[in-house]
């Protein structure tokens, strides 16, 4: 069973993503902020990370930078309310596998997750 | 529960919309045109029969920009109204007034139903040309008033600086007048008490005449300097100043680049004397000078006016010394005065030529001290109109 770690400060959004993934047979680990997300990634070595961008303290860009700096070879999908092309470009430059805009739908999420894990 | 969506428009309503003095077009969610009112027919010259069923965004590319086209789907999907200001969308459906001016428009897109559940979008366009022009007019007037106020303030400040410098110039010249008067008195005494020989008498009379001549030139210079304290800085046509300087010095071998033609610089009075001084220096001190070249360029925002000749140039050890007070003849403006006068309006000068290859004066003018124009409103014309 593939392990997906979610980094998301909104409980509302965590619930949505968690439901989509557990219903499809993924093991889900939930974290509430960037700092905790990076720590749990180092400990648990998930198959994939799904992270929000706009978070207080450590944001999604900083999560991507940390993954790169620590050479944690885990693919990351960004889920964000920021729809600007410049934001998506920046995420990809930092190594994000995919950028999804909120509100996400089930098919979108599952397609991106399966693609990321398959590539990995 | 009743669907709270947009109003249902009956056939009677459509007849009313057809008569309204605003442009009204109703489209389906694929942007095909369902309704085109008489006002739009009049504005565009396009009859209903020609435009119905056509795609609004394809027919009018002004509507096919992101800030309109990406918002229109919201009207159908969520039924939110879309407001389109005249600032971002001045010509929603391009149309001309009878005098040929483009109509300035603002609009709103509203969700409506024409019977049934299908949501359509109604684009209502108002002509705000007069209002827009009035506001632009007021803004321009306000900007002109602000600019004039700023210029007046700048001129007042420059006049204060000029008056401070004026007292400094006056002191120097008054002392020199005193010296000449003392010398003239001395010669006069000789004339009346000691001299017998007619040749000696004539010679001494000549010396007195020369002292008096010098005094006359000092007074003339003082009167010129007085202008500094009385007249505020102005915009001078450089072409005109150069012409006047050439006539004053009777030196006509002066060439200038095409950029000089419309160049104006903001400067205290005495600019003609300053340029006359450049030409005189080139003529007398340049020794082998055959021509003077004047050009203008920019370094970033700063203007660089260059006055150069093909004479012997200024020796390296004299490049700063030539700007010091007391150097050269006291009957005319010197480079010391030039530097001080320029400084009143923030202009600086230095000599950057290669010794042996000619003198080159680099005059550095701040961005708000130069412009390219023929005549400015309110400016004293420096050339006959």
């Amino acid at each position: 069973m593939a392990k997906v770690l979610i980094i998301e400060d909104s409980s509302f959004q965590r619930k949505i993503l968690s439901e989509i993934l557990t219903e499809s047979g993924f093991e889900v680990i939930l974290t509430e902020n960037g700092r905790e997300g990076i720590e749990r990634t180092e400990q648990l070595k998930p198959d994939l990370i799904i992270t929000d961008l706009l978070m207080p303290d450590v944001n999604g860009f900083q999560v991507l930078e940390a993954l790169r700096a620590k050479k944690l070879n885990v693919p990351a999908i960004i889920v964000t309310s920021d729809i600007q092309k410049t934001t998506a470009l920046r995420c990809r430059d930092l190594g994000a596998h995919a950028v999804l805009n909120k509100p996400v739908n089930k098919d979108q999420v599952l397609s991106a997750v399966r693609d990321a894990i398959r590539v990995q | 529960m009743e669907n709270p969506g947009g109003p249902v428009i009956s056939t009677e309503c459509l007849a009313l919309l057809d008569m309204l003095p605003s442009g009204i077009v109703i489209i389906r969610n694929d942007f095909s045109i369902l309704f085109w009112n008489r006002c739009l027919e009049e504005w565009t010259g396009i009859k209903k029969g020609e435009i119905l069923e056509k795609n609004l965004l394809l027919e009018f590319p002004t509507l096919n920009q992101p800030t309109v086209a990406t918002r229109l789907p919201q009207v159908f999907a969520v039924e939110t109204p879309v407001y389109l200001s005249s600032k971002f969308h001045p010509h929603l459906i391009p149309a001309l007034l009878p005098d040929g001016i483009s109509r300035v428009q603002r609009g709103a897109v509203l969700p409506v139903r024409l019977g049934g559940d299908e949501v359509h979008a109604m684009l209502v366009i108002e002509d705000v040309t007069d209002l827009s022009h009035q506001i632009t007019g007021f803004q321009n007037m306000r900007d002109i008033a602000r600019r004039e106020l700023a210029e007046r303030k700048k001129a007042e400040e420059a006049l204060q600086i000029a008056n401070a410098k004026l007292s400094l110039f006056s002191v120097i010249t008054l002392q020199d007048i005193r010296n000449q008067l003392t010398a003239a008195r001395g010669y006069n005494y000789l004339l009346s008490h000691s001299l017998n020989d007619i040749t000696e008498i004539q010679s001494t009379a000549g010396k007195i005449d020369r002292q008096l001549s010098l005094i006359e030139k000092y007074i003339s210079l003082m009167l010129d300097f007085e202008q500094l304290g009385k007249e505020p800085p102005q915009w001078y046509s450089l072409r005109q100043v150069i012409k006047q300087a050439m006539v004053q010095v009777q030196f006509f071998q002066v060439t200038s680049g095409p950029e000089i033609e419309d160049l104006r610089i903001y400067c205290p009075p005495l600019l003609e004397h300053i340029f006359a001084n450049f030409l005189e220096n080139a003529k007398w001190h340049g020794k082998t000078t055959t021509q003077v070249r004047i050009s203008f360029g920019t370094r970033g925002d700063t203007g660089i006016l260059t006055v150069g000749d093909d004479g012997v140039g200024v020796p390296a050890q004299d490049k700063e010394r030539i700007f010091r007070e007391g150097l050269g003849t006291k009957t005319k403006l010197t480079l010391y005065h030039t530097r001080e006068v320029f400084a009143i309006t923030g202009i600086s000068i230095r000599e950057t030529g290669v010794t042996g290859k000619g003198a080159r004066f680099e005059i550095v003018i701040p961005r708000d001290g130069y412009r390219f124009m023929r005549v400015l409103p309110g400016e004293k014309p420096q050339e006959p109109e």
Partner: protein
Amino acid sequence: MCMIVDDEFRDAITEIINIGVGKAAGLLNEITGSHIQLRVPELRLVPIGEIADVYKTVLGTDILSTVMQEFQGNFSGVTALVFPQDSALSLVNLLSGDQSPATDMDSVQVETLKEVGNIIINAVMGSISNVLSEHFSFSLPVYYEGQLSSIAANHLTSEEDAWVVIARTQFLIESMQIEGTILLVLEVGSMEQLMKSLRKTNG
């Protein structure tokens, strides 16, 4: 009236408003050609009777520029976008490329602000509509200027039991920081409807 407004509800509303602001930033990006840097909005839920105190701390007593749209559906009210007037002027000048400084808004600037307000309000209400599968009808945007106490008293609602959701958002456009506040004024009974709708969506 007694109603428990819990963290889950606050979190859900914040997230929905976030989504709306993100969409609005996308459109403002198209208009300015510049990237819009967003911050996490701060949310407060306040009964309208207590809003006087909040004015002073959150919005101050200066002149405010407000764009608002009424909405009606399963829950109804007014959505308003509030800026300190000098922020509104800076925003309008920045978006329209005007440079001359002004001290108050002329009618063209008011129009421009109305359009910006419409973009943001539509995006936020669109987000609420999408996420909660709710349907509304809306009025066109209107502009008001003045201190918030008078705007609220005259234009937001006259109902004593209304609730206000206040979301303070900040965004940076070309290094200029613009602070706007989104007010969602919910009429009597609408807050409960909104919570019911959220619970239904959240499962």
